[in-house]
């Protein structure tokens, strides 16, 4: 690729006691691209995202975002600098309504700690929040308490919150797990379309190869903490090792 990478990891390594969750992970992400990450269970996919977003500190290696070294930065700082994520188990505010969830995301993005006396619930903000809900097809649930919603909706909300404030990079950890099969594609479309409007760089972890094929031009395959393959999706999915360890023979 000709353009400069927006996010680069070099030789990332993470150990938990005796377990090596990541070893020599070097990946470059380019502005505007959509990248899929696949891999066996426990291959280190979530660990990778956790390191990039500052939840885990790598045992070795560096992470560069827009040329700046962000290794070891806190999740808050990575978020503020423009890297957002969604979670394998959706991370939401369960007792609040969908609308409130998004409003909170907006306040947090806008003012970090929140201003002390200016009213936060402005008409403008309400409109913006409703617009986000509409963009992610969540408007039907605006006033429902989030904890009572089906998994899929929670996942979608999780992504919507990550998208607030138009970050430069979004990392989605299994966005479609828990979403019913006939809704997966629709959901990816509703989730990704608004993000793709801008120049957002997107990485998603996925176990469903149909989704991977459909939405990602490039795929990285993980196995046992290392990168098994990295390249155009079609090639990676044909890779023998990937077929053996990740996809399995029959299903591909």
């Amino acid at each position, binding site marked *: 690729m000709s353009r400069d990478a927006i996010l680069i990891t070099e030789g990332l390594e993470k150990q*938990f006691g005796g*377990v090596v969750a990541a070893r020599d992970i070097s990946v470059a992400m380019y502005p505007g691209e959509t990248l899929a990450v*696949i*891999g*066996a*269970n*426990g*291959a280190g*996919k*979530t*660990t990778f995202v956790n390191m990039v977003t500052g939840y885990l500190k790598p045992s070795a290696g560096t992470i560069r975002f827009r040329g700046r070294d962000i290794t070891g930065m806190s999740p808050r700082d990575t978020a503020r600098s423009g890297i957002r994520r969604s979670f*394998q*188990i959706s991370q939401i505010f369960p007792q609040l309504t969908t609308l409130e969830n998004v409003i909170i995301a907006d306040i947090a993005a806008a003012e970090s700690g929140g201003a002390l006396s200016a009213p936060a619930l402005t008409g403008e903000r309400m409109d913006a929040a409703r617009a986000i809900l509409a963009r992610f097809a969540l408007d039907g649930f605006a006033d429902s308490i989030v904890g*009572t*919603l*089906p*998994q*899929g*909706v929670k996942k979608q909300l999780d992504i919507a919150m990550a998208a607030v404030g138009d970050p430069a990079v979004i990392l989605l950890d*299994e966005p479609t*797990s*828990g*979403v*019913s*099969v*006939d*809704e997966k594609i629709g959901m990816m479309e509703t989730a990704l379309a608004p993000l793709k409007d801008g120049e957002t760089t997107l990485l998603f972890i996925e*176990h*469903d*190869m149909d989704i991977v094929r459909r939405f990602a031009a490039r795929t990285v395959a993980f196995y046992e903490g290392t990168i098994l393959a990295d390249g155009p999706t079609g090639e990676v999915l044909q890779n023998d090792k990937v077929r*053996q*360890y*990740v*996809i*399995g*023979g*029959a*299903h*591909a």
Partner: protein
Amino acid sequence: MLEVRTLDVAIAGTPILRGASLDVPPGTTAGLIGRNGAGKTTFMRAVMGLLRPEGGAILLDERDVTAEPAHVRAPMGVGYMPEDRRLIPEFSVEENILLPVHATGAGVDRARLTMIYDLMPEIARFADRKALALSGGQQKLVALGRALIVGHRLLLLDEPFEGVAPALAQRLIEVIGGLRGEGMSVLLSESDHVHSADLIDELFVIERGEITRRTAQAA
């Protein structure tokens, strides 16, 4: 093995299941298919006694357990794998798997444990690690193992393949299919039967809390 008659369940005043009926004869594998929010999890939880039904009956092996507390089911040979894994974080993987065995006071069936480890060699590898450290998919496997260890008669598996890498999912399907031969009944829920099409003898579709039966072929 499992017979559910016109089950009504409401959560916080909202009816979720309406007259849901379903039966799984011994030795069959039934699929409960439905979109998000259709009520699959609610159904499973009600069968397990984790939710109080407002009406209807649940029979296990012809015994009416509708009003019985949750814990009587495991000793009857019912294994349950919840959708959200729910391992005991400070227990090791093996302790988690053996939990129902210890709970019911039955002796540890080594052969069955070995069978589970053979089925999923990856969990054998981390058998002595604490459950809290595992990745999402790994936890899912452990939860499946935990259901298998007591589920001599009936397995209730709530979206067992969700978040499991395809290669492994295929292997699991084969093994669950093999259980039929042992006379076990299985009820597994999925949002679609792509994974389990070959596995399922009976297909039930749940929609807005109502269950309709389809034949596997027709679906």
